[in-house]
């Protein structure tokens, strides 16, 4: 049976970007790849939408960026998580678990 990829709920993209960066510094393309990898290729993201998300996170001080050279010798912007970003990720994970638990409880109610 063909699996349909799930669209992202509003607000979860930021959390996924933070999660992807918690595993190490990456450029934008790498972040998209890592999200696909850690979600088992289940989450469908319009690739360009990553960037406004990344810029917002940088503006809030949760990630920081610097230009470097990629594996294929091209100039690329690499992002890494800041200490504030790590704290935010922990907070968002906790909120997400609570929300998911409450939703499951509601769905199982008879």
């Amino acid at each position, binding site marked *: 049976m063909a699996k349909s990829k799930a669209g992202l709920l509003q607000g979860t993209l930021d959390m996924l970007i933070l999660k992807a960066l918690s595993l190490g510094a990456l*450029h*934008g*393309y790498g972040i*998209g790849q890592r999200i696909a990898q850690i979600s088992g290729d289940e989450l469908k993201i*319009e*690739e*360009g*939408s990553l*960037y*406004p998300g990344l*810029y*917002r996170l*940088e*503006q*809030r*001080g*949760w990630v*920081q960026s610097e230009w470097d050279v*990629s594996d*294929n010798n*091209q*100039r*690329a*912007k690499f992002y890494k998580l*800041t*200490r*504030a*970003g790590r704290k935010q990720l922990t907070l968002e994970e906790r909120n997400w678990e609570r929300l998911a638990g409450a939703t499951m409880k509601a769905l199982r109610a008879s």
Partner: protein
Amino acid sequence: MSRIRAAINFIRARLHHDEIAREVETELRFHIEMRTRANIEAGMAPSEARLAAQQSFGNFEQFKISCCEIKRGFPFDLKALRMGLYIAIACLAGGFALVAVNLPHHSFIGVIWQLAAIAVLMCSFLVGRRKQRQRH
């Protein structure tokens, strides 16, 4: 530290529009380039690979504009700043009142200080009341 960096980025984005737009474009083009390479490695023809990369990226111009706008946006929470401003006004008013009460009332400077304290207190009261009315 990250907030300081955000403030520096904001000032840079305000002063160097074109440079920021070029940086954003380079970054987005790098993404499409990487996706194109991956598509070619997966067996697509180069032209087909580029087209597929552009399609999976979405609206390039729209994302570029969004990124530039975010870069130019104010990096701090305005609500928190406003709250800080109210607290600062309240502290200032308190300080003025304290100084005014302790000054001799018969001197000209003492009277000026008292008037200033009354004016600051009145302003903070009026601003606070207006905000409260707006909320209700």
